[in-house]
């Protein structure tokens, strides 16, 4: 019996109790943990987002959430505790039932024990009985009693079994209830989780919103503040920069000044130092000198003298050497001078020689010119004579041809030109001879010539180029005039040889002019005439400078005329007349005659050839006859 009870208990206890609390525990913790997780997240975000943000909002939300959590968890734990309470209740009930059962069993045991004792005691009576019917009766009674006992027991057993069944049923009911409760709890928890998560989300959103607002606000504030500060900073920086720049400039100036000052000071110091040093040195030197002097004095004056002497000798030697050098140089100089003079002399001699040579050449030239004139004359005469002879001969041949060949009457043509050649020749020769004595005069008037030249140059400066004048300016007078003359002559188209001619011409021209003026006013002023004469006497070359130019012009014209005079047109005519002694017609006539004569000549030549051939043939014939005769004679032999 007890076994059953214990079984029931065992059945009830582990089956009924354990499941709800365990499950509820697990679920609860799970729920809480999820909540906690979320809360953690929330808190973290709160912490991360900003510590300065409004704590009120946080606090509020925290409070809310905490309350919510507590309430909700309480909601669940209530169920758990209720279940626990039920379990406790059940336990007490079970305990009571157990006690009752135990009492009942004890009672039963007692009563059954009594009955058993009765039966057992009866057995003795039964065993004493010998009579069968009695025994039978007794046995029956015993059996009855036992049956009663068994019935009692069976009854009890039935009761207990019924109780057990009831217990089983209630246990099953309990299980179902528990299951329902668990389901309910799960549902609740799920709801709560949802509620909580929603609440968390809401709170989170709110907190976030608040935080964001605050963040924005703070950010804008900070930004404005930052900008302001930055501006201030910039301004300050700029100001300080400007100040610093100024300061730098000031300092630079100061430094410059200081540097100069320092340099100056140091230099002054140095100089002072130098001066001091030098003074010291000087004093030292003096002292040393003094000491030296003293020493020298102490050593003796003789040594000094000898030294002096030695130095004097040295100096003398040096001076002597210098003198020698000087002498040498002088000698060299004189030598050089001599050589130079010699050289110049040589050169002048050379020059003179050259001039002489030139003069000689001039004379030679003149001589050759005269000789050429003579030869020209002779040649002229000769060729003239020859030409005349030839003309005569031509005329003679013509006459022969006309008279003999043609049988025409021949007239002697006019030959006037033959006599024309005569007078032209002596004129030229006379011109040449005229210039000769004048040249001889020239030598005597070289001085006058020089002066004339000078005058000429001075008067005709304008003809010379200014450049040349500038170049000539630094030269001496004589050279200047020479050069000017050369250029002048060149520009006038004259030669050096023409110069004396020109001077002569100028002088003559002056004379002519003077005579003219004298004639014009001879009696007008006697004193004046005398003066002019005096001037002419002193130097006939002195020409009035005003007359130089017209004189030059006339000279040039004269020269042009004289050159034109030399034209040999007469000579040409003369020579042409000589060439035309035989006329054209005559020439034609002569040609025809020649032709005829040639024909005649050819005929004659033929005849002569033929005669020659005949001669040869005759000769051959004779030879052949001879040969024949010889053969014949030979053959005859």
């Amino acid at each position, binding site marked *: 019996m007890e076994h059953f009870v214990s079984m029931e208990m065992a059945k009830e206890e582990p089956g009924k*109790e354990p499941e709800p609390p365990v499950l509820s525990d697990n679920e609860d913790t799970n729920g809480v943990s999820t909540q906690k997780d979320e809360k953690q997240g929330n808190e973290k975000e709160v912490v991360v987002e900003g510590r300065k943000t409004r704590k009120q909002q946080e606090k509020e939300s925290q409070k809310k959430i905490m309350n919510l959590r507590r309430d909700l968890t309480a909601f669940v734990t209530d169920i758990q505790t209720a279940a626990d309470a039920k379990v406790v209740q059940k336990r007490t009930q079970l305990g009571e039932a157990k006690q009752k059962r135990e009492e009942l069993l004890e009672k039963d045991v007692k009563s059954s024990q009594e009955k058993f004792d009765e039966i057992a005691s009866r057995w003795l009576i039964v065993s004493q009985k010998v009579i069968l019917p009695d025994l039978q009766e007794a046995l029956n009674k015993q059996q009855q009693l036992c049956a009663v006992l068994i019935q009692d027991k069976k009854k009890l057993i039935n009761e207990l079994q019924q109780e057990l069944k009831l217990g089983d049923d209630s246990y099953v009911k309990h299980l179902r209830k528990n299951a329902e409760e668990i389901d309910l709890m799960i549902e609740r928890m799920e709801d709560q989780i949802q509620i909580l998560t929603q609440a968390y989300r809401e709170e989170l959103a709110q907190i976030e919103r608040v935080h964001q607002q605050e963040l924005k606000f703070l950010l804008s504030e900070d930004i404005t503040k930052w900008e302001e500060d930055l501006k201030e900073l910039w301004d300050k920086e700029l100001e300080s920069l400007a100040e610093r720049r100024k300061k730098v400039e000031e300092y630079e100036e100061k430094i410059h000044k200081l540097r100069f000052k320092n340099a100056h000071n140091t230099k002054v110091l140095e100089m002072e130092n130098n001066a001091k040093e030098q003074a010291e040195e000087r004093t030292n030197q003096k002292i040393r000198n003094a000491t030296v002097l003293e020493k020298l004095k102490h050593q003796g004056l003789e040594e000094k003298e000898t030294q002096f002497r030695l130095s004097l000798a040295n100096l003398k030697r040096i001076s002597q050497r210098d003198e020698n050098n000087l002498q040498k140089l002088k000698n060299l100089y004189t030598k050089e001078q001599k050589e130079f003079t010699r050289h110049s002399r040589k050169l002048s001699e050379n020059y003179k020689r050259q001039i002489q040579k030139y003069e000689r050449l001039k004379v030679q030239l003149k001589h050759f010119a005269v000789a050429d004139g003579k030869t020209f004359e002779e040649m002229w005469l000769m060729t003239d004579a020859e030409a005349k002879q030839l003309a005569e001969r031509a005329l003679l041949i013509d006459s022969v041809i006309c008279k003999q060949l043609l049988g025409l009457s021949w007239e002697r043509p006019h030959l006037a030109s033959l006599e024309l050649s005569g007078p032209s020749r002596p004129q030229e020769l006379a011109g040449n001879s005229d210039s000769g004595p004048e040249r001889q005069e020239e030598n005597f008037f070289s001085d006058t010539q020089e002066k004339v030249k000078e005058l000429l140059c001075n008067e005709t400066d304008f003809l010379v180029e200014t450049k040349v004048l500038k170049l000539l300016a630094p030269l001496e007078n004589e050279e200047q005039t020479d050069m000017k003359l050369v250029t002048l002559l060149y520009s006038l188209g004259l030669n050096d040889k023409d110069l004396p001619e020109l001077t002569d011409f100028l002088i003559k021209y002056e004379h002519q002019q003077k005579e003219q003026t004298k004639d014009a006013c001879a009696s007008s002023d006697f004193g004046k005439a005398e003066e002019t004469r005096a001037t002419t006497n002193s130097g006939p070359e002195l020409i009035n400078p005003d007359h130089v130019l017209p004189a030059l012009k006339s000279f040039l014209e004269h020269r042009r005329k004289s050159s034109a005079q030399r034209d040999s047109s007469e000579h040409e005519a003369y020579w042409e007349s000589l060439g035309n002694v035989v006329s054209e017609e005559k020439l034609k006539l002569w040609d025809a005659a020649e032709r005829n004569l040639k024909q005649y000549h050819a005929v004659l030549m033929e005849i002569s050839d033929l005669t020659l051939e005949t001669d040869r043939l005759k000769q051959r014939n004779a030879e052949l006859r001879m040969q024949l005769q010889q053969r014949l004679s030979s053959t005859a032999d």
Partner: protein
Amino acid sequence: MRRIIAENPNWSLVVVPSLSSMCLQSIVNNFEEKQIFEQLTPGQRDFIQEGLSPTLPLRVTANLIPDGVYWKRCCERRWDLCDVSRYGHSWRRMFFERHLENLIELFIPEVTEPKAVLDVLPFCKSYVRRLNVSQLLPPIKEPQGEKDGEENDLDLAIDSEHDEACAHHFDFGLVLRELTHLEELALVYRVKECGMNFEWKMFEMTKRDCESLAKALKSSRTLKLFRLHQSNVEDKKCRLLVKHLLDHPSLRELDLSHNLIGNGGARAIGKLLARSKLEVLNVCDNKIGELGAKAIARALSRNSTLSSLNLRLNLVRDEGGAAIGEALRSNTTLHHLNLGGNDMTWRAASALSDVLIENKTLRSINLSCNNLGKVGGKALAEAMSHNTTLTELNVLLTEVDEQNASFVSEVVCANQRSEHKKQRKTGSIKYP
């Protein structure tokens, strides 16, 4: 070529797989004979993990295939519900733990070869951290057993002894020795879905079971959590277990809830508290009486590691509660205490409230479902007015009058808030 296209409009060159993918496919097909995995590129490895058959023997795959797609496929193929977050986000760990659990749960002593389990262990041992065995099958003894059951009515004592002699469950000694990374072990000696074959002895462990289990627990050096639920552990077995758990190097949490532990077992547990580093002890829904509670209280007064004690639904009563309260005077580590449903009255409440004034470490106390009455409520309210650390005090269904209850809850709320502030100030927000 052209003919093929003409005949088959769906033909396209894309359908023809590339040589490399064909090679990979052949590697997949012949993976059992020849394992080519390490020398492949990550992309190719992914392909192989996608393609490998989940039925390949574990000896091939266990240590070669890394955690990932393959193990996910294996898991999903075998079980509908796969919450990888409970397994440290490791599909391989999940696979091996659940595989081993399945093997143990379906192990029938004397029928199944122990080799079937032992063969797997070498592959499992480096991945299994937690074993949650939800059933252990008893050995089969069909006709005889039934007969025994019929005869049981006559001779209970002999039969039960006989049963105990032969109805041994799976021996954990073999397994725990091998699993060098095991940290959590949860056992329930029961048979799920037994239906009409129900027998009481399906739901209890035998003495030999207990012995072997105790030895196995002792041999495991890494175990941190041991949980034995609803397995009819009485004082004897409890003592036996505790005897072997004394001075365990790593055990931190012990859960023997919903058993039949009485005062004797509680005394043993008190001894265990003194000689271990237990941090969490849960013995709710047992039969620990006043003496057992006193023994535990004694241990508690000396212990310096325990932070949570659950004595819910026991028979501690006033004396036990007072003893525990007394012990808390000198204890500075206990944070959570649950004395719900222990048939306590105002005396225990007043004893506890005396402690609450002094103790600064307790965070939560649960006194629900005790008959504390108005006096007890008053004492608690008074004590709470001096306390600033307690953040949870459950006085539901204790017949405390509303005034005191609300006062208590107010104080608790205030304490909670101040706690929050403290946490805020220290900057480190920890959630117990």
